[in-house]
């Protein structure tokens, strides 16, 4: 269960942390009710500023993926409780598909890539 940070990645570090945790939740590595490390602890472990991790956790909370409870830290909440609309959920997919199309990949290639990624995520989350 690894969280990765890449200095060559154009995304800011807080975004990489948030996306990494989202991926772990999607793959079922962080199950519902699992505790996340406290903000201070994760900042120490990664060697980054406290505000970086706080921003990542805020984003995860905004997306309804974690709940921050006073005294017991942050826990992963049920994915079925996510109250986001279909349009909002489709937006990152649309952005990713646009990137792939602009990169010159054919529709069949994109479909096979999406199917492969989906099967990986689906398999691990079961």
């Amino acid at each position, binding site marked *: *269960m*690894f*969280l*990765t*940070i*890449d*200095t*060559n990645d154009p995304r800011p*570090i807080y975004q990489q942390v948030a996306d990494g945790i989202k991926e*772990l939740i999607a793959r079922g590595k*962080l199950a519902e009710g699992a*505790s*996340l*490390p406290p903000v*201070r*602890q994760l*900042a*120490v*472990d*990664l*060697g*980054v*500023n*406290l*505000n*970086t991790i706080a921003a990542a956790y805020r984003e995860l909370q905004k997306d309804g993926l974690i709940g921050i409870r006073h005294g017991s830290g942050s826990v992963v909440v049920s994915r079925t409780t996510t109250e986001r609309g279909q349009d909002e959920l489709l937006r990152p997919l649309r952005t990713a598909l646009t990137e792939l199309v602009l990169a010159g990949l054919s529709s069949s290639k994109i479909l096979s890539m999406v199917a492969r990624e989906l099967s990986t995520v689906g398999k691990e989350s079961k």
Partner: protein
Amino acid sequence: MHIDPYVVVFDTVFWLVRFLFWVVPSDVWRTCLLLLPAAFVGVQKAYNMDASNLYFVIFYIFFWVVRINGCVRRGRQPLLRGPEWFFNVRVQPDFYRGAGRKILHRYWMRMFIPFAFDVPLAITIFLSGRFPLLSWLILGLCALIHINHSFSVDLAERQARPFAILEAEQPVASVALSLTPRRLRDYTNRNVELALALSPLVAFAWLVRYYFATPEHHNLRLVFGVPAFLLYVQLGILFIKRVVVAWRTSVPQAQAAEHMEAREETRKYYLQVCDWNRAVASAGILFWPIKISASPAGLSHLLSIWFAVWLVIGVVVTVWVEIRRKQLVTLALHARPVKLPDFLRQSEIARWPVCYQPSAPMLILKGARGYSLNLANKVTHLGAAYLIGLVALFVVLPVGR
């Protein structure tokens, strides 16, 4: 012609030591040191020395024998990865023929800094005849040797970096951090903890009974002082154990498995050392009521057995430590050293041995001049409070005097 005084001093000492070890090989030196306790038995009989004093001297001599191995091991450390490396710095091919030679020699010289404290203090203790102070000297030297080594290695690596291969000095782009929860109980043996918790309870129950049997004859501080101090030490080691378990850093993604394995084994080793030290403190607590209840005639015999047992345990543990260290070195060699990205620009924010950086949450920052203790960290506050308590207890209670 410029004459570097450092080179003159180093070469003189270096050739003198080489000459001594050429005349008398290192094995003979060790044997001589090991024979010293036998000589001291004669001294003990001649001067009617106390049995416990004799054992303090034997422990001190044993400590010197162990340090010869430690010096040899630390001396070889820079070249463990081969001639193209200096510790964890990948150096240019002619490094050891040029500036590297001087850096290496300076590192070797710094290994002897603890001896500069040890020898005069030991001479003073021997001349004053206060041999129990040798045990405190050994404890202090253990800490000094480790701190000196850490700072010395860091300094040597920083001095070698200007001569490193440029590509190898680039930080890795991608790092990984394991989020698998790690708890103290995962590294705890329930039976050992039960024994460690029961021994002070038994000892204190015995001491309460002993004290209340004739309270007018006993001094409260004398009866409870030493076990209270040892219990405080034991709690301190438990605190260190907790810090070691929680300590986590990111690893290079490309070699995550090798680095994780090496770190996990190192963690287990340090936790075992913590448990050994807690067991020593517990044994001391348990022995104290036996000691103060013993008759004056039987006390000398009892102390002889006690110290002899600890000497045997000391030899066994030393052998175990040497074996474990070799295993850890083998594992560490599998993980190729890399430079990790510095997200916090630690070299800019930590310029002194201590710093106050609330936004950088780490306990120790790797600054421009070596390690820097972050005074804004909670562990620093707890550690400082603990040390103040330790000094206060040492002053108030009759420990080691």
